[in-house]
C-alpha cells in the first residue's frame, strides 16, 4: 500500500505578541501536525525576540518582513486598537488572517478590516475559542436538534480577574477599547448569536468602576441585557469580579431557559481542586483545549479554501454589542442595533 502524498505543511506566522493569547496560539502552531510555524514579527523587538526564542522560530524585525515570506496565514495578536493595520497589511499581501478578539475598537476599523479581506479574497477569522469549547458544543448540538425547544432567555457570565497584571494595555481605554465590557462581552455575544442563530436588536448596560478603582481608569463592573430579533433576552455579566486569589482566572457559563427545560453549561468546570500546605487553593484544568481546535480550524479553512466556522463578520457583530453597551450605559436606557 502506498502512502498518501503528504500535503506540504501550512506556513503560519504570528504578528505581535501584545496579547497573551499569542502564547497559546504559538504553542498550538508548534504542536499541531501539518503546520510550519514560520516565525514572529513584533513592533516590540524585545518581546518578539523573546517569544521567537521561546518557540524556536525566526524573529522578523518588521511585519512586512514576515509577510514577505509569503506565509499561508498569520495570527494577529496586537493590541485591540492595532488589529486593523496588521490585518490590512496581511490582506494586501494575500495572506489569510486569524485575528484576536475583540476584532477592533471602532465600527469604522472593523468595517475596513472586513472590506480589506473580502477585497483581497483572504479569510478573516475571529479568534473566538468558545466556539470550540467541548461543553458549549454539546449544547449547540442539543439546540440544533431542538432538544430544548425555543430558547426564551439566557443568563450568562464571563467574569474574570482584572487583567492588568498580564498586560498593561488591557486596561488602557485607547488600546483595549475599554475595560471589562470590551474585554469580556464579545465572547458571550458571539456564543449567543451562534446558539440562537439570531441578531441582537437591543442592548441595555450598566457599568461601574468600584473594583480596582485606584488601579485602572476603565470600568471593571458591567451587566448587560440583550434582546434578540425574535424576542429572546439574554444577560451578560462581564465584570472583572474575580479577586486576585480566586483559584483561576475566571470563567464562562450560561443558563438557558427553553420551552422544554433548562440547561446550565460551564465551559470551565472541568477542574481538579488542588489544596496545599504552602499555596492557595488552585484549580487544575483538564478540559479539552478549545484553542487547539480553533487554530486547527483556521488551518483547515485555509487548506480547504472555505470560510472558517467563525468569521470576521461574527467578530464585528460581537464588537458592536460591546460598543452599544457603552452607549447604553451613558444614556441609562437601552440602545437599538445595528448601530449607525
Amino acid at each position: 500500500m502506498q502512502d498518501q502524498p503528504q500535503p506540504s505543511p501550512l506556513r503560519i506566522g504570528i504578528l505581535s505578541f501584545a496579547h497573551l493569547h499569542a502564547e497559546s496560539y504559538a504553542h498550538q502552531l508548534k504542536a499541531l501536525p501539518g503546520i510550519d510555524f514560520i516565525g514572529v514579527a513584533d513592533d516590540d523587538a524585545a518581546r518578539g525576540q523573546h517569544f521567537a526564542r521561546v518557540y524556536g522560530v525566526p524573529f522578523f524585525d518588521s511585519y512586512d518582513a514576515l509577510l514577505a515570506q509569503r506565509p499561508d496565514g498569520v495570527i494577529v495578536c496586537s493590541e485591540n486598537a492595532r488589529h486593523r493595520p496588521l490585518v490590512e497589511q496581511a490582506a494586501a499581501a494575500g495572506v489569510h488572517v486569524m485575528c484576536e478578539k475583540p476584532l477592533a475598537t471602532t465600527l469604522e476599523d472593523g468595517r475596513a478590516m472586513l472590506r480589506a479581506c473580502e477585497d483581497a479574497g483572504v479569510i478573516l477569522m475571529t479568534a473566538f475559542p468558545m466556539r470550540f469549547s467541548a461543553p458549549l458544543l454539546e449544547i449547540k448540538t442539543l439546540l440544533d436538534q431542538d432538544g430544548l425547544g425555543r430558547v426564551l432567555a439566557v443568563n450568562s457570565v464571563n467574569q474574570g480577574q482584572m487583567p492588568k497584571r498580564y498586560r498593561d494595555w488591557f486596561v488602557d481605554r485607547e488600546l483595549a477599547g475599554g475595560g471589562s465590557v470590551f474585554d469580556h462581552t464579545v465572547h458571550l455575544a458571539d456564543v449567543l448569536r451562534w446558539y440562537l442563530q439570531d441578531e441582537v436588536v437591543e442592548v441595555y448596560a450598566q457599568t461601574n468602576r468600584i473594583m480596582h478603582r485606584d488601579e485602572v481608569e476603565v470600568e471593571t463592573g458591567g451587566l448587560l441585557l440583550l434582546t434578540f430579533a425574535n424576542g429572546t433576552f439574554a444577560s451578560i455579566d462581564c465584570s472583572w469580579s474575580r479577586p486576585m486569589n480566586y483559584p483561576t482566572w475566571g470563567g464562562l457559563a450560561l443558563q438557558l431557559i427553553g420551552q422544554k427545560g433548562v440547561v446550565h453549561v460551564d465551559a470551565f468546570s472541568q477542574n481538579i481542586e488542588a489544596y496545599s500546605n504552602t499555596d492557595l487553593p488552585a484549580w487544575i484544568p483538564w478540559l479539552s483545549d478549545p484553542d487547539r481546535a480553533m487554530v486547527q480550524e483556521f488551518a483547515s479553512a485555509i487548506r480547504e479554501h472555505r470560510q472558517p466556522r467563525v468569521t470576521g463578520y461574527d467578530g464585528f457583530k460581537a464588537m458592536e454589542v460591546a460598543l452599544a453597551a457603552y452607549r447604553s450605559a451613558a444614556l441609562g436606557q437601552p440602545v437599538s442595533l445595528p448601530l449607525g
Partner: protein
Amino acid sequence: MKVGIVGVGAMGGTHAEAWTHTPAQIVGFVAEKFEHAQAMAEKYGAQAYPDLAAMLPHIDVVDICTPTHLHHEMTLQAAAAGVDVICEKPLARTVEQGRAMIDACRAAGVKLLVAHVVRFFPEYVRAKQAVDAGQVGQVAVIRLQRDVFRPRKAEDNWFLDFERSGGMILDLMIHDFDYARWVAGDVTRVFCKHLGDPSVSPGDHALAILTHANGAISHIEGSWAYPPPTFRTQFEIAGSGGLLVHNSDASAPIAAYWHKGDDDTAGEVPVPASPLLESPYVTQIKAFYHHLTTGAPLPVTAEDALAALEIALAAIQSAESGMAVTIRG
C-alpha cells in the same frame, strides 16, 4: 400574646408551625373557606372565625398570610382595631397601598412587621454580615438568582393571577430586590425583561439590572420556569476587596439517588429546604415575637418592604415599557 392567623395556605401553615416555637398563643384562624380555618384551629387548639373582623377583638397580633391584594385592607382593619400586624411579603399590591398601610399603622400606634424571610436565611445573613464587616470592601456587582417551579395550587391559584399577586416579579423576585437593597442600599434605576406569556414559556421568568445610589449594580434572576421540585438559589457579591459566592446546589448537604420512578413529591408552592436545626421561618417568627414583647431590633422595617415593593413594581413597569425606570429616593 394572642396571635390570629389569616390565610391558611403554604405560608399560613408555615407561620402557624413557627409560632408554636414561641410562648405566644395561636388563638384563631381565618380562611377563605371556613372549613380550612376549622381544620387549622383543630390542629392548633384554636378558634376558627368567619372573617378577620370577628377575630380581631380576640387577638393582640394578626399574622396576615393571605394573597397579596388583600394585605392592604386587612392591615387597615387591624390597625383600626389596635392590633399589631405581621404581614407576608410583598407588603402590598401597589405602592399607594403600602404607604397607606404604613401610615395607618403609625397613626394607630400599632406595629407593622413584614415577613421578608430571606433576611433570616443563614446564608443570606452571613453574607450580609461579611459585607458589613468589610470582607468584600465596597460592593460593586451583586448577582442574585432564585429559580423555582410555577406555583400550582389545586384550587384558585391566585399566584398566577397578576391582578392579585403581581406575578412572579412581585411575588418571588421581591426577595432578592429586598436583599440587593439590604446589601448595597437604595436603588435608583431598574431595567427588566420578562417572560410572562404561558403559551410561550413554561413559567414566568425575568432578568433585571438594578443600579444602586452608591454606584453598585445588581443582576437579579427570578424564575417560575424550572420543573418541580426545583428550588435553587445563587448569589455573588463582588466588591473592591473580595467576592462571596453561594450556590444552593453546591451547598446541598445531602444527595440521594433512588431506584424508583420520577415521583413528583413537590408541594403546591416551592419552599426552600436546606437542613437546619431551626427553620428560617421559625427564626423569623421568634424575632417578631421578641420585637413585639421586648422591642428587640428587627433586620427589616415596613419602609424596607415598601422600598422593595417599589423596585418590584418598577421592574414590572420596565418590562412592560421596554425602558429603564428611575426610582426617586
